[in-house]
């Protein structure tokens, strides 16, 4: 069984037609339900639901406080390599882009890690471009071991792997896996992932599942807004998270809402996710999946992030650098431009001023 089977059920589903028949009463009743089914979720994603956004936000806030309290988990990304053998039209690291390529030596990883650890944040996400050749499994294991000396929680965002390879990484100390489907619409997927391993839609779709089987404690997924139809993509992301949560009870699930901004190259997004719809989707995620982590990165600007905190965000990066070697001596181009340019101290101070507790450490290496 794969999430592909679920996706197939919607191949001929008329979303437009469904949305036309959604009434205000339906939306209000969906907001007020204790357990929302997939149609309730869809009602909340309907354009009309924007009329009830305040009500959605109020409930989202309430559920979040009940489940997570007034806390926000902090993490930082470290880019260890920007070599990539795929060509994704929207990404600065695409093999077609003539950028300065760099892979950190293990020694450099240690230096960067030490620098990042100065923030006091104990959770790290390490990323690479998707090149099996340049950053093979052994390298990833070595990086993990170094990072584990400085951080208690290590997650990866690298090329999709087999369950066996993930098991090796789990043993080496990896705790969590981030993998975005980018777009759940297969046709669009094929059109933006032109070549390389990443063009395999199905293999990518089953990646979180292989990670769960390998033992990772947390899975973070999402769609990249800007590629496919906004409401549909949000709907499938939520369904995917719920599918995984029913199948792998023991995994903590997270959803991110990345949206395309100005990366290197000049990709024009197919769709634009505006701020209002962003908040609508985030609240719909929370109401549909009360315990899921909602992760807001520094792609979003400072003011917007601060406001999302009070609604239902549970995870923040703070003071991120998206260049390889960015924390010590950035020379390379970033994967994407960050908007919230505050350093981690500033973000943390702001979180406290807003009446939330910044969580530096939320796991112990065991």
């Amino acid at each position, binding site marked *: 069984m794969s999430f592909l089977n679920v996706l197939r059920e919607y191949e001929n589903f008329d979303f437009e037609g469904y949305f036309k028949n959604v009434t205000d009463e339906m939306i209000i009743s969906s907001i007020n339900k204790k357990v929302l089914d997939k149609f309730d979720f869809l009602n909340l994603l309907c354009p009309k639901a924007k009329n009830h956004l305040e009500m959605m936000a109020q409930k989202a806030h309430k559920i979040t*406080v*009940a*489940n*997570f*309290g*007034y*806390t926000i988990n902090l993490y930082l990304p470290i880019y260890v390599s920007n070599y990539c053998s795929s060509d994704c039209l929207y990404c600065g690291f695409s093999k077609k882009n003539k950028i300065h390529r760099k892979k950190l030596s293990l020694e450099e990883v240690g230096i960067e890690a030490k620098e990042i650890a100065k923030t*006091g944040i*104990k959770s790290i996400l390490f990323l690479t471009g998707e090149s099996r050749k340049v950053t093979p499994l052994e390298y990833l294991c070595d990086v993990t071991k170094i990072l584990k000396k400085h951080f208690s929680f290590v997650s990866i965002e690298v090329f999709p792997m087999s369950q066996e390879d993930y098991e090796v990484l789990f043993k080496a100390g990896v705790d969590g896996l981030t993998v975005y489907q980018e777009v759940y619409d297969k046709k669009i997927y094929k059109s933006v992932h032109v070549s390389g391993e990443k063009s395999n839609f199905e293999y990518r779709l089953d990646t979180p599942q292989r990670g769960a089987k390998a033992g990772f*404690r947390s899975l973070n997924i999402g769609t990249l807004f800007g590629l496919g139809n906004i409401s549909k993509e949000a709907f499938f992301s939520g369904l995917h998270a719920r599918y995984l*949560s029913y199948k792998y*009870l*023991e*995994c*903590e*699930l997270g959803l991110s809402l990345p949206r395309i901004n100005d990366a290197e190259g000049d990709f024009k997004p197919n769709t634009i996710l505006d701020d209002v719809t962003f908040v609508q989707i985030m609240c719909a995620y929370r109401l549909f999946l009360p*315990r899921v982590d909602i992760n807001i990165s520094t792609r979003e600007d400072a003011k917007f992030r601060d406001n999302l905190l009070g609604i239902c965000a549970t995870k923040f990066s703070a003071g991120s650098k998206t260049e390889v070697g960015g924390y010590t001596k950035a020379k390379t181009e970033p994967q994407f431009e960050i908007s919230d340019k505050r350093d981690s101290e500033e973000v943390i101070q702001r979180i*406290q001023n807003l*009446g*939330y*507790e910044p*969580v*530096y*450490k*939320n*796991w*112990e290496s*065991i």
Partner: protein
Amino acid sequence: MLKIGDKEFSSRLLSGTGKFRDKNDIKKMLEKSGSQIITIALRRVNLENPQDNVLNYIPKHITLLPNTSGARNADEAVRIANIAREAGCGDFIKIEVIHDAKYLMPDNEETIKATRILAKDGFTVLPYIMPDIVTCKKLEDAGASVVMPLGSPIGSNAGLQTKSILEMIIENSNIPVIIDAGIGLPSQAASAMEIGADAVLINTAIATASNPALAGEAFSWAIKAGRIAYLSKLQEQSQYANASSPLTGFLNL
């Protein structure tokens, strides 16, 4: 007095450190509520960062109850317990083995296993469980110092949804029964005490109240009231005692 392991406590309110807006609120809450035992997730204990280290916000006379939050099986729970002991958190351990990240339901089977290992190793074990009489008996045999059945799902504030089973557990138990999770209001804490619970653990409701210290105080009064009600056998006063038309009058008793 509430006796757990070799320690005695006058307060029957156990509190928690999670979900607070500000760690400075913890101390005030402890003062106002009189709680003498506080649970902390080892996963959150940060020895390297004094400002973030929750242990620095807890007065020394309070008994620490580290918990194994994040453990997915007995083995992980045992490892976390040992790290907690090494970190200087003492010998009390609350076992939380959760195999369900969605509703945070405890895994009784793995909890029994972990209890057996840790009790043998000298820990004072407080296992968090799904209310079940058989599990409670097995935990007693395994060396648990108390049992901590849930009142309703964590963070739900739904009160004693499992009341009828809790009553059976209380009736049958030879060790203290502490109701953990799901209590959102002082009145619910009072009813837990009225049915004979030895103590209750309240975290979410206190931590997320707009004034945690005041909320803690409210819970402590409710718990005292509930306890006195239990001791005064209020619950046992039969509603059948004064029936207006006696059924046994013909016997000329």
